[in-house]
């Protein structure tokens, strides 16, 4: 194996305001490594997804190996390693939502946006060509009483029907 095979990443730096936020986050914990999740969230918000440059920078900042960051990033489905749409739609498909027909919601979304459902390892598959939407299945969103539900970025939408989905999508575009 030669050195040319090593990935040369684009360097990543936090913006001035994010750097401040990250420094405050790190100080909250007894060890730097403990700030990994919130710091990665800040980084993802800034960069859009977790690039190799982000992993390297966060590793240096928290004084851990790059692999430790990669480990965390691949463990949690809320971190993306490739570009996603401007709006990430997570449709809950665990039991209560399934009983309340979340499949109808998912199928409607797929048809309406003309794309498949993304998998954790292949986000491009579920992202629209214009880079606006990404559809993901999600584990329980803790709103079983108002099933079926989905989240669009940080907002929760309840009691979904195909009509309601149209309305929500209409409000986004």
């Amino acid at each position, binding site marked *: 194996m030669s050195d040319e095979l*090593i990935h040369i*990443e684009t360097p990543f730096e936090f913006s001035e305001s994010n750097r401040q936020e990250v420094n405050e986050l790190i100080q909250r914990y007894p060890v730097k490594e403990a700030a990994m999740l919130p710091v990665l969230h800040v980084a993802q918000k800034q960069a859009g997804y977790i690039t190799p440059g982000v992993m390297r920078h966060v590793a240096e900042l928290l004084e851990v190996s*790059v*692999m*430790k960051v*990669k480990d965390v990033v691949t463990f949690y489905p809320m971190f993306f390693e490739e570009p996603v749409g401007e709006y990430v739609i997570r449709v809950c498909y665990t039991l209560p939502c399934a009983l309340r027909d979340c499949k109808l919601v998912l199928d409607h979304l797929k048809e309406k946006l003309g794309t498949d459902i993304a998998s954790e390892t292949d986000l491009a598959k579920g992202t629209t060509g214009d880079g606006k939407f990404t559809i993901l299945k999600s584990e329980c969103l803790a709103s079983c009483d108002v099933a079926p539900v989905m989240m669009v970025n940080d907002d929760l939408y309840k009691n979904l029907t195909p009509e309601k989905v149209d309305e929500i999508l209409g409000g986004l575009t």
Partner: protein
Amino acid sequence: MALIKLNDLEVEVPDGINVVEAARMHGIEVPHYCYHPGLSSPANCRMCLVEPHVFFPPAGKVVPDRQLATGCTAMIRTAPPDRKLDGKFDYIVQTDSPRVKKAREDILEFLLVHHPLDCPVCDQAGECDLQDFSYRHGHDKSRYVEVKNVPPKKDLGPDVLLYSTRCIVCTRCIRFCDEVAGSGELGLIQRGSHDEIDIPRAHDGTPLQLLDNKLAGNVVDICPVGALISKDFLFKSRPWFMKKVNSVCPGCSVGCNITVEYKEDGVYRLKPRYHADINEHWMCDDGRLGYEYVNSEDRLQIPMKRENEELTATSWEDVLQLMADRLSAAEADSIVVIGSAQGTNEENYLLKKLAHDVLKTDRIGLFGRNVGEEHKFPQFTIESDKNPNTRGARDMLGAFTNGNGTAAAVIEGDKLWESLSDAKVVYLVNGSPERPLTDAERTALENVDFLIVQDIFLSDVAQLADAVLPSTTFTEKDGSFTNSAGWVQRIHKATDPPGEARVDWEIIQQVAKRLAGEFEYHFAGEIAAEIAATVPGYSEATHQQIGDGGVKLRDE
């Protein structure tokens, strides 16, 4: 010490050890994968489940605990007098109860769920814990009928391949890189049943960092299954066809204990062997992969002498006679004998004896590989002296006191080359895998009238020689090395010397005999016995006493 009841045995074990080790001490196997005595215990494989017993007040007696415990984290400690079980035991544990046996079978069935069972083409077959424990503790069938995960094969670094399918995710390799090497290249990606060992990679799979630290090869050794494989050994031999012999790594002055694995046609691999005070369970890749020179086609196989400016092949008879003639013709104080830090104590002792008793010269030098880099890891050090026996060679070449009660000083480094200016005959023993000469060294050696070089390659020094004696590497002879910390340790003969090459001490003895020296040794152990009797500090360094564990030099 704690008194424990281990199955039916009543035994004493040291305070503070775990059940796996306590059982091992008394010949009972508690199968385990994630636990390794040189690493921390995460207790994630669940294979070492045992059944501790506890006092149950309602019943007023000692009963099996409700839950099985992992033997690797179940620590045995001395109990206070009022907490002794059955009046005297500090700990009671069953490693072979029906409940334990059932648990082991079930765990093994789980561990094999995604395992491809590709033993016929697996490098680890024959030395695989998964095979061995399945054979001794497992089920004969699996109830899993669904599709198995097939994660990809991965290239992790210069010498390590990962067959992810075979991996049981015990994380020994990750902990090794974190704790012993301190480099942290390995980790887990994904989660649950999709967990895979990997190096950090970009999303497209190109590595951000390779597993290329100098201790990386150890992860292959500690992998209990065939997941981590050495590229150097891949498909070279089935393990059971190789013979094994205990030895010491000649790569640096640490003197890691190793096992040389070989067949008739050469050395196949080196594996570290446990020594609590020297290398623990580990060795470095410089040593591990540094054996190739032993098998090299370029090894010296026949004696040579210089004729018409050219080195030409000759017979042992001829070259030894030539040497004897030149040595006996020279004035004693114009002869310089140079020993080797690559050579054994026995060779250097005999060389010194030749110089002192037969050649009557006090001019003794020491030669060896150049100083290299030192590498420090959290739990391991590779030393900068790249010779296995610098300390021993100094001790041996500095032996033999003269009339005034002191021994002649051993000349080393630049002083040695300067001292050659008036030398007529020089007998130099090398034996290094590689030892380039500087211009100054070359000039010094070129000025010598008659240069005898005993070597394994036509090295820089051998090329300048007037007589070349083909000798042997560490796998072709018996003897002992003294490491930098003063441990005297044994190397054992594995392979045969190439061609007509001879064992170094035998060559020296032949030279001595031709000069009417009374040398009559039949094996290296005889020389070691003489060393033990005469050289200060070495009184316990007979081959019998050194054994497989080595002996530490005594202050005498």
